[in-house]
């Protein structure tokens, strides 16, 4: 039952994106912090819990460094690095910490200059040309990020007859949402024919099956329902939250067409006491088109293997029955390395009714789902506009 200590989301903010050469990774954290304080009406002194993965685009800086950077006097901090699932995991953990009274107000920040910082590299981590276990069982064979997802896409096509056109629909629906977001990196029209005829990067996937590379940062604040009464925004409720992991390196994935969303999704929906059919808008980590399809299936929007048929009627598009990645997603708008927090913030923005021309009418229930590693760690949040 909701009570005074019920954890709620009271602040969200984004830093400048998709191109922000004027900001360092730390600068993205700082700008997002300033904006989330303005958004919520809180001050840094109110914060007694802090969560961050650091300055990660693909690299990781210390949580402790960021705590120092902002001089946050935290009683509790956490930086569990599950990549694109990290900030959903943070909300899950912060919920417990706030409920139990360890902290009252938890800040989360993220920032990355992945696009503008030309020193960044996606090359594998090696020392003097050596790669250590367990990455040594993969890196010497030349896997690529898109190629790793292509392994799952190929298997999905093989097992279920999924087509490139069905996967392309995810790129197309996301691009249509991006057209409604003035900040999105790519807003020009994209057709299914464009997606399937683009050069293949790693068969069976091509250029438009892949996310963009951008700069970006974000911040979010959670506190108690009681504290939220004095703040600027109507609080958003966390109705369900869960995390699960199946592997980390792609070669260890137990089943290439089933992600841990099939574990964390049903747990989160059960907590919320609702089913996927009740959801008004979905914000699903879209590193690649196949990622969205596997998350839709895992979360229970459709059965395993039926993702292709599920998306092909256009229901993910603006005005569809399940508008998905309404800010233009990682596929068209913003992907600075770890997109998880952006899906979370778009979900909150929609539930607040502050999404402007891309607002999903009367959005009351949203799901935000983060995928970290390579379809490895999946954290799911069910968020609500109204008090449960």
């Amino acid at each position, binding site marked *: 039952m909701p009570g005074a200590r019920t954890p709620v989301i009271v602040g969200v903010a984004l830093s400048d994106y998709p191109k922000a050469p004027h900001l360092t990774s730390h600068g993205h954290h700082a700008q997002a912090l300033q904006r989330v304080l303005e958004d919520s009406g809180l001050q840094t002194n109110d914060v007694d819990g802090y969560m961050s993965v650091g300055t990660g685009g693909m690299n990781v800086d210390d949580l402790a460094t960021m705590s120092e950077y902002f001089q946050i006097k935290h009683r509790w901090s956490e930086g569990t690095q599950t990549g694109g699932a990290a900030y959903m995991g943070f909300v899950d953990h912060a919920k417990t910490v706030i409920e139990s009274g360890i902290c009252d107000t938890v800040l989360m920040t993220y920032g990355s200059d992945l696009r503008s910082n030309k020193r960044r*590299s*996606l*090359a*594998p981590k*090696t*020392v003097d*040309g*050596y*790669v*250590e*276990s*367990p990455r*040594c*069982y*993969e*890196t*010497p*064979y*030349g*896997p*690529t*990020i*898109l*190629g790793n997802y*292509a*392994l*799952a896409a*190929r*298997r999905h096509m*093989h097992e279920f007859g999924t087509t490139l056109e069905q996967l392309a629909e995810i790129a197309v629906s996301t691009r249509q949402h991006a057209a409604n977001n003035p900040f999105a990196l790519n807003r020009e029209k994209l057709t299914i024919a464009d997606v399937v005829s683009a*050069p*293949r*990067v*790693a*068969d*069976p*996937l091509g250029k438009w099956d892949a996310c963009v590379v951008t700069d970006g940062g974000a911040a979010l604040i959670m506190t108690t329902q009681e504290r939220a009464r004095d703040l600027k925004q109507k609080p958003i409720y966390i109705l369900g939250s869960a995390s699960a992991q199946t592997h980390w390196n*792609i*070669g*260890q994935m137990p089943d*290439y067409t089933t992600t841990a969303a099939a574990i964390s999704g049903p747990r989160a929906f059960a907590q919320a006491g609702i089913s996927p059919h009740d959801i008004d808008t979905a914000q699903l980590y879209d590193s690649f088109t196949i990622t969205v399809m596997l998350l839709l299936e895992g979360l229970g929007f459709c059965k395993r293997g039926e993702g292709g048929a599920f998306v092909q009627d256009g229901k993910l598009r603006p005005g569809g029955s399940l508008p998905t990645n309404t800010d233009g997603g990682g596929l068209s708008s913003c992907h600075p390395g770890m997109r998880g927090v952006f899906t979370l913030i778009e979900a909150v923005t929609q539930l607040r009714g502050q999404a402007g021309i891309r607002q999903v009418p009367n959005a009351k229930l949203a799901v935000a789902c983060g995928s970290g590693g390579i379809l490895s760690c999946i954290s799911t949040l069910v968020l609500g506009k109204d008090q449960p």
Partner: protein
Amino acid sequence: MTMLSDVISGEIPGRPVPFVDADNKVFYDGCARGELWLQRCVETHKFQFYPRPCSVFTGGPVEWVKSSGRGTVHTFTVIRRNYPEPYLESLTPYVVAIIEVAEGVRMMSNVTGCAPEDIIIGMAVAVYFSCVDENLRLFLPFWRPAG
């Protein structure tokens, strides 16, 4: 049609090579002898990959067993662009595959010795070994269509 040549095996300047340590020395020593060695849980007799000093099934001890070296292609991709390191450019297109080894484990590797268009999921493949660092006599397993 491009043939995936065995050039992707062998010593290639710039390619990261495994760091041989206490966890994987038996594995790489086996590769240098032309043998694929896998770990098996002592209690359950289930196989595991990659090597580590405890069973993923029980947390208990493991033993080393020589593999048949046979497998099938579980899934694969043909890498054509956006490779992470410059040395890979001259190798494209190349195939990264997940091999299901007969003993029941899966491992990433390259499939060579055929055209990319000829590779299908379920295709039978056999392991071979190629030296990736002459100084260290370090060999890695690669796979090609079973004869």
